C-alpha cells in the first residue's frame, strides 16, 4: 500500500522534475531559470520525504532541513547579480 503510494509520489515528482528542467532550459529569462531551480530544490525535499518513509531512516531528514535553509541562497545570489547589473542579454 505505502509502496504503491511511494511509487506514485516518485512518479509525480519525476514528472514535476521534468517540467522544471524544461523551464530551466527554455528560460527565456534568467529569473525564469532561477524559479525552475528553486522548484527543483523543493522537489528534492519532496524526494527526500518519500525516501525517508520508504527507507525508514529519519537521518535523511537532516538533508531536507539543510536544503530548506540554504537552497534559497542561490536565488538570492542570482537576484543580486541581476540587480547589480549583470549581463541581461545573456539569454
Amino acid at each position, binding site marked *: 500500500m505505502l509502496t504503491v503510494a511511494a511509487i506514485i509520489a516518485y512518479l509525480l515528482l519525476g514528472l514535476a522534475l521534468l517540467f522544471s528542467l524544461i523551464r530551466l532550459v527554455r528560460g527565456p529569462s534568467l529569473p525564469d531559470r532561477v524559479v525552475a531551480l528553486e522548484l527543483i530544490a523543493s522537489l528534492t525535499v519532496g524526494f527526500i520525504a518519500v525516501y525517508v518513509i*520508504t*527507507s525508514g*531512516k529519519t*537521518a*535523511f531528514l537532516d538533508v531536507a532541513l539543510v536544503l530548506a535553509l540554504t537552497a534559497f541562497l542561490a536565488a538570492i545570489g542570482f537576484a543580486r547579480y541581476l540587480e547589480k547589473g549583470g549581463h541581461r542579454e545573456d539569454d
Partner: protein
Amino acid sequence: METLMAFAVGGLYAAAIYMMLRRSIVKLVIGLILLSNAANLLIFTAAGMDRGLPPLVPEGALVPDGPVADPLAQALILTAIVIGFGVLAFAVVLIHRAYEVVGADDMDQMKDTDT
C-alpha cells in the same frame, strides 16, 4: 545499480571533458565542476552502493543493528567534495582575474606565456 551508475558517471566524465575542451574559460570551469562530481560519484559507485543503510549507530548501541553502507567511502567523498570546492573557488576567481587582465573569455588569447 552500480552498473547503471558506471554509465552515468561515464556520461558525466564525457560532459566534463567536452566542456574543458572549449575555448571559453567559463566553460572550462563548468567542465571542472562536472569533473569533480564525476570523480566523487565514481568513488561512491566503486565502493558499492547500498540502499537505506546510513552508517549510523543507534543511540545506546555499540554497533549498527545490521549492515550499513561503506562509511569510509563516504568520508573520502566528503573530503574530496570539500577539497574540490576549495580548488574550484580558486579556479573560478582565477578565470575572473584572467578575464580582467586579458579582456576576453577566449583561451586562444592566452598563449603568450608558452613560447
